[in-house]
């Protein structure tokens, strides 16, 4: 899978800087994702990974630098606008609608993506396109069997899948997965990875993850963030072989 070539980058972050008071949390970061990219962002706690994601999604404003989506500058676009343009994220701390059913959770996202969320009559259950959209997403994420369950009845692994289904419903061009394996039992991890690898190949995906087995199996390229700055960027093998990365981040256990 060639990520270079003459295709336009899906997401291009250049010279991004952000300080929290005197503390630099994002230091001159460059990051380029081409369509179909499977890019991992790793780094120890407090490295500024989530802060970076928050700037890409527009929740935080950068102090300097630019963010482009297919060449269009979105540095100052609102979060809602970015979602509409195709920058979608999932959350490290699962953030869903507990007292709604799984299908309703996904249906909300499908309705929002179709801009029919303000329609005060009719029902999503009678809207064939919405129902079909929800069915397709649930099938893709192996959630059909729990479609009618309230979200609060689901285990952590399945909630994680609902979270991803919501993101996919928004028809992302760039998908940011914030620690998809967090809280997922080791038993469910294989299933999660299997589903992640089946995600549509045209979407550019940036995954933030601590679970190295998942990172190494899922990602093609890895950026290592330390203290708000980019330490290394390269292919999986390059990063695995990098002594600096081993010292700073991976530690002994990753020498397998």
């Amino acid at each position, binding site marked *: 899978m060639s990520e270079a070539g003459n295709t336009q980058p899906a997401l291009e972050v250049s010279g991004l800087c952000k300080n929290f008071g005197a503390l630099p949390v994002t230091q001159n970061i460059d990051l380029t994702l081409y369509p179909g990219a499977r890019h991992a962002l790793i780094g120890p706690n407090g490295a500024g990974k989530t802060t970076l994601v928050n700037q890409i*999604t527009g929740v935080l404003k950068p102090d300097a630098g630019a963010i482009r989506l297919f060449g269009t500058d979105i540095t100052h676009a609102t*979060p*809602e606008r970015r*979602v*509409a343009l195709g920058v979608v*994220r999932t*959350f490290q701390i699962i*953030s*869903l*609608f*507990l*007292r*709604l*059913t*799984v*299908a*309703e959770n996904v*249906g*909300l*996202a499908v*309705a*929002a*993506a179709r801009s*029919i*969320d*303000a*329609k*005060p*009559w*009719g*029902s*999503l*259950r*009678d*809207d064939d396109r919405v*129902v*079909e959209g*929800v*069915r*397709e997403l*649930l*099938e893709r994420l192996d959630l*059909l069997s729990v*479609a*009618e*369950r*309230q979200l609060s*009845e689901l285990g952590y692994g399945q909630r994680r899948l609902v979270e991803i289904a*919501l993101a996919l419903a*928004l028809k992302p061009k760039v998908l940011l997965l914030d620690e998809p394996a967090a809280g997922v039992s080791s038993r469910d991890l294989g299933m999660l990875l299997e589903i992640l690898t089946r995600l549509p190949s045209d979407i550019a995906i940036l995954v933030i993850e601590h679970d190295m087995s998942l990172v190494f199996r899922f990602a093609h390229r890895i950026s290592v963030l330390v203290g708000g700055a980019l330490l290394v960027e390269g292919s999986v093998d390059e990063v695995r072989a990098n002594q600096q990365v081993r010292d700073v981040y991976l530690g002994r256990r990753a020498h397998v």
Partner: protein
Amino acid sequence: MTTVSVTNRPVVAKVRNAFAAHRINWIDIGIWVVAIGAYFVVPTYLSLGTTVLIMILFTLSLDLAVGYGGIDTLGQGAFYGVGGYAAAFWALNVTGEPISGLIVGGGVAGLLALIAGPIVLRTRGLTLIMITLAISSMLGEFAVTAKSITGGDDGLTGYHIEPVFGLFHFDIYYRTAYFYALGVLAAAFIVARIVVNSPFGLTVRGIRENPVRMRLLGVRIRNRLIGLFTLSAAMAGVAGGLTAQVTGLIGVDTLTFLVSGNALISLILGGFGRLYGAFLGAALFYIFSDRAAAINPFHWLLALGILLILAVRFMPNGLMGLADQLRRKEDPLDRSGP
């Protein structure tokens, strides 16, 4: 890419049914049978019955805001009072035709919500409670002060309400009033049902559950909440207008905190976010209060207090929650309810 094949049909039906819908069921039939039956069974209590129907409507309006949208307002009484004053003002100065009076009452209350909404709905939780409380207190003070419009402490009275549709005269036995209120309540219930079943209805439930997430789905949550708040206020305004029309009097007591508080207690008794909670809760609250006051005019509030404590202790999700529990006992696989 996706074609609905024949083998997909059960799956599609499964997904369809996973969307909650407010369906017609035995509670529907029961409620309306009781409401119509009461007219014939206890004809001497139609005054109380009319009050109950109007308060069900008012509580229903509160359920839309609090139960569905998570807008924890304590100022719903403001819209009730404003709607009442507007309808009375209309009857005094323009026409005594009742339907137009209700439209004016609901319209003015809705307009007020449309103006107050953008400010009020910036906040949530305690702040929102305080702001809504403050707005209704301010309106109460205004009603006392602006004598030329509101009649001050005396309120507005002395207007004549013409027959409904030019046919049904209001009588001292509340016969017309009862069916008039019942008709308006039925119409409002149908509107509420359509709205809560709609994509908009699901969206506001989503906002109630998780506003931040909803915003990140690209939904303009403020606008959705303003829409819901306005609808809820208009419905409360219609309830106020009904009160003004059937009692021939609207006073500053409609703008007190007590009005909002009673509706909230009714909802606690009945259950939030269920529509029927308003019916069961308001009926229980007002009929119980009336009977308790008749039995002991001095200590009836104590009985009400005990009822509330018992209700919160033994049915935290209200009468509707209790109904769910009983149904689940029969069918352990039932997954509905909170």
